[in-house]
């Protein structure tokens, strides 16, 4: 074992939250900051030669090496957990920038009422109407408190969009259901794909309020307040699952790393796998990690920041015996509780047979339209059978032949191979599209949680994270409702396009999306927005960290990222995770370093 010279701050994970914290601390203080990143270096100059669909989209070359570490899943405590053997339900990143390099860069805020969800639901429906085994709680912070940090994040990334609520004034064309914004978006919305226009036209005719989804891919060239200059997006479609070769997509490597690289008080150490937070008498003393050569290294530090991928934050706390483990049987303890994901529709709404090609191979990952007329409490049945809805999207791309060839209308060929199938596939290539997607808000429940697996281990022999999670009746009702809405949206888009809709589909090719009409699945993609495990809150009784993301029991440990979210909104989490990090950094620089101790 090698013991290194102490540093002031050690940060585990070089993704969005870890690099945001590193940049704030290394530029605003003279403290020495070391970031431990498990994966390799990432460079913009390498991304152009990675515009290869097979290796990066199909084989997922930028993701964590699942051979070295995965998770196990079981539906209930009575079941035996099985490992997720191939990437499926979520796409954790690795390397400098983490998932912030390959993300699709949809950059939404959370709805204002989601921060006070427990209060909101009790006021609207009464406690008796809530699911019996729910663990819904307020965040301990309000939207208004976070708004300045949302704005800071949006400026740093250069997010494009159109405000729908400026200081309480609703503006049609933006998302009128979003919380009040202090500023218009830093950049105007993206250019439109043909499919976006058709979707918007159709959906607007239904009387709904579609809006261009905010994205962290620049719509035009932009210099952020840190002086970082980046060009506008070129819509090359090598976006989600790829790093951006022109830096139009905001990534930690192009917005944050340039500000700290080369500074004397900053060091980024790649190929370092953190295994334990070292601590004594209620105080963290550093991090134990394995270096590239497989040697154990101890990095002493006065402050430890965990900012690895959501579930790995919880894993590190569990392995390090920091905090009280959640016990599902008694409901006692907090660490590992409140695991959430996001709902999907029950069955697809079919596909649209367009008359013209969509050129679906053009676009940006985050480009598309959104619709929040059914998000949060909006537009739901009056009987309270569904307490929260979700967000719809439409007009997204995805038209390269490796992804799209072979989608044909049912009955167009006798089987899914051979001459007739090939003929139909050529005829319909780039002309079959979806009428939209849905992401549902997911409550925390007592029975959905994270602990350590008793049978399976990672590369170093440490136990894997085990997740115990299943959908409940509430998600099933939400999913059926979403499918009905999606069918309406699909029909509306088809009317705008003067095109035909086909329901159903054969052999998983036309309509094989992830569905929430049964049990929780780990064999197909849902979203990378799995959350919870080390949640934040107003009290150590029901949370792991305070609203400054500071550990309640160990004040020199901070836990950043979506592991802190008490329940899952339907929206994309990155902007909220970074905004909370900025707020934590302000508290560290403004208060903590002068007087280390509990901030709340």
């Amino acid at each position, binding site marked *: 074992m090698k013991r290194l010279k102490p540093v002031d701050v050690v940060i585990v994970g070089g993704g969005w939250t870890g690099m945001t914290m590193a940049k704030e601390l290394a530029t605003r203080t003279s403290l020495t900051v070391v970031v431990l990143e498990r994966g390799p270096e990432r460079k913009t100059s390498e991304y152009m030669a990675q515009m290869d669909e097979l290796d990066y989209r199909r084989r997922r070359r930028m993701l964590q090496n699942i051979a070295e570490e995965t998770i196990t899943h079981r539906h209930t405590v009575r079941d035996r957990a099985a490992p997720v053997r191939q990437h499926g339900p979520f796409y954790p990143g690795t390397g400098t920038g983490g998932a912030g390099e390959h993300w699709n860069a949809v950059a939404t805020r959370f709805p204002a009422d989601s921060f006070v969800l427990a209060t909101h639901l009790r006021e609207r429906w009464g406690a008796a109407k809530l699911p019996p085994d729910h663990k819904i709680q307020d965040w301990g912070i309000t939207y208004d408190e976070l708004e300045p940090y949302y704005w800071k994040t949006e400026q740093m990334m250069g997010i494009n969009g159109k405000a729908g609520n400026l200081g309480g004034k609703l503006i049609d064309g933006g998302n009128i259901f979003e919380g009040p914004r202090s500023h218009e978006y830093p950049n105007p919305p993206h250019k439109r794909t043909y499919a976006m226009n058709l979707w918007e036209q159709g959906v607007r005719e239904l009387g709904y309020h579609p809006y261009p989804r905010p994205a962290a891919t620049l719509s035009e060239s932009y210099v952020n307040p840190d002086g970082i200059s980046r060009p506008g997006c070129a819509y090359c479609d090598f976006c989600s699952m790829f790093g951006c070769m022109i830096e139009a997509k905001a990534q930690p490597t192009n917005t944050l790393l340039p500000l700290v690289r080369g500074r004397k008080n900053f060091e980024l150490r790649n190929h370092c796998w953190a295994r334990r937070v070292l601590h004594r008498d209620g105080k963290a003393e550093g991090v134990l990690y394995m270096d590239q050569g497989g040697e154990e290294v101890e990095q002493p530090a006065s402050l430890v920041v965990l900012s690895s991928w959501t579930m790995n934050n919880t894993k590190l706390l569990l392995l390090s015996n920091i905090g009280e483990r959640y016990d599902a049987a008694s409901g006692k303890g907090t660490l590992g509780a409140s695991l959430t994901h996001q709902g999907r529709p029950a069955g697809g709404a079919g596909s649209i047979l367009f008359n013209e090609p969509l050129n679906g*191979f053009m676009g940006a990952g985050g480009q598309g339209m959104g619709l929040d007329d059914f998000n949060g409490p909006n537009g739901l049945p009056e009987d309270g059978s569904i307490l929260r809805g979700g967000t719809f999207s439409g007009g997204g791309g995805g038209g390269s032949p490796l992804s799209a060839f072979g989608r044909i209308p049912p009955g167009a060929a006798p089987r899914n191979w051979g001459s007739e199938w090939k003929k139909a596939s050529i005829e319909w290539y780039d002309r079959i599209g979806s009428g939209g997607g849905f992401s549902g808000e997911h409550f925390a429940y007592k029975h959905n949680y994270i602990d350590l697996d008793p049978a399976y*281990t990672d590369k170093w022999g440490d136990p894997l994270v085990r997740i115990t999670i299943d959908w409940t009746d509430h998600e099933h009702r939400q999913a059926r409702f979403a499918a009905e809405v999606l069918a309406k949206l699909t029909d509306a888009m088809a009317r705008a396009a003067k095109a035909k809709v086909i329901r159903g589909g054969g052999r998983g090719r036309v309509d094989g999306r992830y569905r929430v009409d049964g049990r929780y699945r780990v064999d197909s993609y849902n979203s990378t927005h799995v959350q919870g495990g080390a949640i934040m809150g107003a009290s150590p009784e029901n949370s792991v960290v305070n609203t400054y993301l500071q550990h309640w029991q160990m004040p020199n440990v901070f836990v950043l990222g979506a592991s802190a979210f008490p329940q899952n909104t339907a929206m994309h989490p990155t902007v909220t995770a970074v905004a909370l990090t900025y707020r934590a950094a302000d508290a560290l620089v403004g208060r903590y370093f002068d007087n280390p101790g509990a901030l709340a």
Partner: protein
Amino acid sequence: MRRREFLTLPAKGFGGLVIYSLAGEPIRLEAQDGMVRVPLRFFTEAEAKAVAAACERIFPADENGPGASDANVIVYIDRQLAGPYGHDKYRYTKEPWIESVPEHGDQGKATPRDAYREGIPTLGADFAELPPEEQDARLLKIEDSAFFDLLRDHTLEGMFSDPLHGGNQQMVGWRLVGYPGPVMSYRYEIEEYHGKPYRREPKSLEQMVGHDVVGWEDEPV
């Protein structure tokens, strides 16, 4: 090391293609007439002939355009199976292996290499020599198998992935549907081509960046 196996293929598909010997040395083939002997990295010659014949029935050359043989799909598959993907190097393969519920996805121990070694005999030893109708009849018998799903996926990958991986030679797959390959910018085209097809002569990744690109399959295993 096993006996070196070769597959004889028409040379026209190999314009400037880099292939690899069993020792991993790159060999650049020039476009030419006649036939070339391609060193195989995973298949035996007999296996390669059977798999190539099956791929050609899945994606046949016909009046609607070229097929799997024209694209050298067999070279693509051979290289994939020889590389980290074929060995499940990026899959969680720790014990215990258990049977589980369908929601947990593939829990099988078989690597893609195993799947081919076990699946090829189900085509029949004489598969490559059969007339197309009889090959189709054989494939119909196994079309619900996991091996067939894999073969079909790999055929599509070999047709439509970048030529750097060995298939889609001369970009025949991309030309078939009018896909332009990786393109740096659609900044203006994205709105100019609403409702009409954007179709142009494709370029491969290596042509676009102007240098060789090494696929994941060439990572040592």
